[in-house]
């Protein structure tokens, strides 16, 4: 698992560095070095788990299922859980290790951004689940308050950061930081509903952010600028793309009927069920991020799409071609499907979460 985790990072350097835009070498180098830094911490954590994976040092193993059957000694857990969690968190946009994300996503070409934000960042969330929390639940329970603070900062700060941006891709990158931070936030709550929500959020955000980056790419291909104050009133000029952008925005801010709502609702309900008061207060603070998300999404839609056209160069832009329509409609369709009928997804998720939940409930009865 570690091998492929590291392997996923290196092609990003070449992809962003060769085909990107803007300060691409700087962003590519920053992204690669920070992500490999996360892998470095992760390696130490994994070696620690390996050497503690057998009570009498006789049958050391790297097999996750085998290790999950025993309890790793508590002092080792307290040392290696932060290392492993931070190692995965760097990829999953944990504050303060998220700084590779805005530059990286903004400088990358469209398809690379879609892949990276939509898929790669979920590796961080998956790893945190599978390895950090599954194998070391006691330390996770004890130390979760530190990481809850960090993840809630990344959710709220990411949203605030998005408000201040003028470049479409930077807005989206900060939005990704915020949503992926929400995944890690939910995972740390350590109860069934929140974890279900985390996985739904992973899928939903993956689709949403891919949709967003695709639309931004299409806009950039037509107008050759990503600054929102240079474009305006595009709804009349390219109605199909604008409507799709509005739908994507509404999914991102959690409108019921689209997948964002299902995910965030589950996460917040689950998080609020945590028995300790501190966590509930933090949950309330994080819920405020929904409002902040609404601010930046609606602001962009207003400036970009609605109102009179501000730039006469863009009067005659072509609307979406057939292949663009197919890709965007597919993504919107899946987002809506999850939003309107999530039960087919949640049975699958429930089945896969079953061993993890069992283990957590057995050791930390709430």
């Amino acid at each position, binding site marked *: 698992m570690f091998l492929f985790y590291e*392997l996923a990072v290196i092609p990003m350097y070449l992809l962003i560095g060769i085909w990107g835009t803007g300060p691409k070498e700087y962003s590519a180098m920053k992204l690669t070095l920070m992500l490999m830094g996360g892998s470095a911490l992760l390696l130490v954590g994994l070696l620690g788990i390996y050497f503690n994976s057998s009570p009498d040092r006789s049958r050391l193993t790297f097999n996750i299922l085998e290790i999950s059957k025993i309890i790793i000694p508590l002092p080792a857990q307290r040392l290696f859980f932060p290392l492993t969690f931070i190692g995965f968190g760097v990829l999953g946009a944990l504050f303060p290790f998220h700084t590779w994300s805005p530059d990286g996503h903004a400088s990358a070409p469209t398809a690379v951004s879609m892949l990276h934000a939509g898929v790669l960042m979920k590796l961080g969330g998956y790893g945190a689940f599978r390895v950090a929390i599954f194998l070391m639940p006691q330390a996770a329970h004890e130390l979760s308050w530190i990481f809850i603070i960090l993840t809630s900062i990344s959710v709220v700060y990411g949203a605030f950061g998005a408000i201040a941006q003028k470049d479409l891709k930077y807005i989206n990158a900060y939005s990704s930081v915020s949503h992926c931070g929400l995944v890690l936030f939910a995972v740390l709550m350590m109860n069934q509903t929140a974890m279900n929500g985390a996985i739904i959020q992973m899928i939903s955000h993956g689709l949403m952010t891919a949709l967003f980056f695709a639309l931004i790419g299409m806009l950039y291909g037509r107008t050759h600028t990503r600054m929102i104050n240079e474009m305006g009133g595009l709804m009349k000029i390219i109605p199909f793309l604008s409507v799709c952008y509005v739908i994507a925005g509404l999914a991102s801010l959690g409108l019921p009927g689209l997948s964002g709502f299902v995910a965030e609702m589950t996460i917040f309900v689950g998080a609020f069920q945590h028995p300790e008061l501190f966590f509930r207060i933090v949950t309330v603070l994080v819920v405020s991020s929904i409002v902040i998300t609404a601010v930046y999404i609606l602001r962009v839609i207003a400036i970009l799409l609605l109102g009179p056209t501000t730039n006469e160069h863009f009067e005659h832009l072509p609307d979406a071609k057939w292949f663009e329509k197919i890709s965007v409609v597919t993504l919107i369709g899946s987002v809506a499907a999850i939003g309107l009928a999530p039960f087919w997804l949640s049975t699958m998720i429930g089945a896969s979460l079953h061993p993890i939940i069992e283990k957590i409930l057995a050791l930390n009865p709430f």
Partner: protein
Amino acid sequence: MSLGNFLIMRHEMLLIVAALSVLIAEIFWDPDKKKSIILFSVLLFAVITIIGFLPSTEGSLFGGMYISSGTRVLMKNILNIGVLLVLIQSVTWLKKEENSGKINEYFLLIISTLIGMNFMISAGHFLIFYIGIELATIPIAALAAYDRYRNKSAEAGIKLILSSALSSGILLYGLSMIYGTTGSMYFGEVAKQFGNNSLQILGFIFFFSGMAFKISIVPFHLWTADVYEGSPVNITSYLSVISKGAALFILIIILFTVFPVIMATWQKTIFVTSILTMTIGNLFAIRQQNLKRFLAFSSISQAGYILLGLIGGNQLGMTSVIYYILVYIFSNLGAFGVVAAISNATGKENIDDYNGLYHTNPKLSLIMTLALFSLAGIPPVAGFFGKFFLFTAAAQKGYYLLVLIAVLNTIISLFYYLLVVKAMFIVKSENPIEKFRSDFPTRFALGICVAGIVINGFASIIFEAIRNLSFGV
């Protein structure tokens, strides 16, 4: 002791025969066909390498002065592969006009060095060990000054011989202290008599310093950059891989068999020196422009990582060191092979000259990228597994802090390796290096390096085989 016993010394005898035949061949060779002697020598060495892999008998000769065991034969075979690759890569350089008068001496000197290293690895007595080291060092100094009319090359040779002489003197001083306090120089006897006597520990420190010079550990590394930059490219590759590898092999054998009593002492020493070596090697490599100096500092930091394998004193440590040196041979010779090909064709050696190489010579830049990724330790190439096993060996004995520092240093090294990749692939250039086609030996050697890097990553039987052999030293 019958004559048949001498077959235990099979490696060295074959090499001596090869050296002598290369020396004499010049007399009988037709002067017009001088260049074909290159082919003859390389083929001769290839035959020797293959014979080296045949199963051999273990035992000791000369009353225990010379020991041959499975591990040591494996180490010699690995060095043979490396030298064969260096020789194949040097064919292009040797065919140049300026070198036409010096072809025989080149082979003779390289084979002599290798003989010295073989004796060093098979040592059972400190005297054979010392003779081996001296025989390994002096011809290399002559080789470093091979382009004697080029200032830098002559400077490299002088620096190498003077600093080697100093370090050999210190080594010998340490050995004399060990002899004085234990009364014998046989490895077995010394191990029995060794205690925590302060004079003995001082002797050990001097011995370690002498060895550290050859491995380029900080603070004994100052000769490395200048010598690597000044020597001809093929000698640089020989120095960085074979010389360092042989010294590491014998160091690990001696530490595990002769000095296990003071394990706590040398573990502390290695802890400090490995952190210094990795960090300083990496930090200095960032600002280098000349590729040979760049690879010199990178090889200093690689030596630092290998020390992590030594620190545990366990079987996994020895296995990982041997495996890593095998992988390191292929990766470093791959990188140096590309540098040599470009240097032979155009004479350019700076990173800035490599800008835009991908557009003119895509295969060369891909080989260089593969070699650099293997050196940096990126999966799935073999370099990753090598580093991983080294770190696991250190972690097994609880040195987690050291592993953390090593991994952070890997990140720093990734930065400067990516600088070269960036130059080749991303930076656009006005006049990139022209497209050229290397002749067959260069391509063959680079092909073997690539195959070595890729296969070692996937074939775990190689690691298993090494592990089985490294049990009993």
